[in-house]
């Protein structure tokens, strides 16, 4: 079965695509995880703090 996996035409391409999708998902999730971090309560109430637009267009509360 393993030999079939290695030698079947097209399966190699699927493995490449799967690696591509896995990478995009993982790296994308890392970036989104950072972007979604909320500021602290004290930070939002500090003098001079201004909201900034997220990439989604919504303002931080």
């Amino acid at each position, binding site marked *: 079965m393993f030999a079939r996996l290695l030698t079947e035409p097209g399966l190699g391409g699927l*493995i490449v695509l799967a690696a591509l999708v896995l*990478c995009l998902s993982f*790296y994308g999730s890392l*970036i989104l995880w950072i972007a979604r*971090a909320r500021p602290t309560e004290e930070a939002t109430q500090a003098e001079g703090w201004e909201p*900034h637009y*997220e990439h989604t267009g919504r303002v931080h509360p």
Partner: protein
Amino acid sequence: MERRNEPVDPRLIQPILRTGAGYYLLAAFLSAVVAAGLYVWIRQLRLGLAVTGMNHPVYWGLYITNFVFFIGISHAGTLISAILRVTGAEWRRPITRAAEAITVFALIVGAAQVIIDMGRPDRILNVIAYGRFQSPLLWDVTSITVYLLGSITYLYLPLIPDMAILRDNLPADAPAWRRRLYTLLALGWHGGPEQRRRLERAVGVMAVLIIPIAVSVHTVVSWIFAMTLRPMWHSTIFGPYFVIGAIYSGIATILIAMAVIRKVFHLEAYLKPLHFRYLGMLLITFNALWFYFTFAEYLTTGYGGVPHEMRVFNAKLSGEYQAAFWAMVFSMAVAFVILLLPHLPAPRRVRLPAFRPGYALATAGTALAVALVMVSQNVSGATQAGLAPSPALTRLLTWLLVVLLLGFGVSVLPVLRRNIVVGTVIAAFLVDLGMWLERFTIVVPTETRPMLEGYTIGIYHPTATEWILTAASFAGFALLYVIFVKLFPIISIWEVQEAEEVIPQMVEKVKGYLPGV
């Protein structure tokens, strides 16, 4: 803690906001070279690969040499940014971004070499449609794809806080597109403790992940050669040999980039002689490793004396590829000496000569002229006319070249000893030249001597098309870098600012391993 109100050193932002005539001239020149490359590539697509020097049995030439070379120098970012980050080398902070940018752009240009090498680039889709995973080419496509995406992420993550700094510190008259770009890329960065913690964690995870990915990339590139049965390719040492060579050329490239950035943007306060000294020491280490692996490879082959291996061996050491081979060895040896010079004590009895620019220029100019004469003797004109260069004349010219180069070396010795930046950068150029020649001497000579006896020896002379595309590839790499420097801070502002917070921890760390403290 919010960072928005911390003052930002204007030197770090000036390169982005101020554009001199020199920048436009450089960009125009590089664009012209790239355009020339594009023209000859389109011509190659129309007329076929017959416009190159590639032919049976030499199916891979300059393009694949460039492919291996560029994938090699992409290891700059992995070493500087990832390995030095994981090992806690704080001095890396001002140079991480420059290194990470080299990685991404080198990978893009390297991957493009494969497209350039294909007579029918549309057939790249066959990799997906019909690819079989038993092929090292598929392993290569997979690993380079993973590495490219990882490198882009690893370049982008530490860029986020700097995008926020730019978003918040742009002057009022800055173009609106810049403001939009930095706002988009900043992803709403507010610098809160949770967000900083997540960024540190993500960068740490990527740093640990990218190292084995990078090692796998160049190992797999080497296996494209080593998994064949061809003489002097089918070698178990190729994996580590290529990885060592890649990191070696990567360090050299980052040194060259640092020197240019330092000079052009007056960033001497950030890119200090200390950085060149430390990278120079790494370069010495990898130089020694490279020599060790090269010696092991050639000794094993020469000692074994297998006939089909010896045909290739002799072609490299004393045949038509001896110029490339010995130029490679000479470059690496001279680089080693130059790197070692600042660390050697000054001789007591012998007084070093003072630097004389006229003498240095004269010897360098004459050496270049002699080298050009030697190259022209071996290029198509003489060979096609059936006029081989006289061995006696070649020997005389070779010795003359060696004497001139030694004379040049002696004349610049005082400069190399005193000025570590100049010396290290010259050595870096020699290393990159040597590594390109190494890739060439790996790829081409083996193809000219197929394993089966009875085949005539192959001949490979790169044509103008290949040389122009090689020049365009280097120009394209430089152009991507030039554009990057204009859009993003080449020194990581937040990492350098963060370094001040790290000082007490470093003091504690050092105290921790001192006895009695």
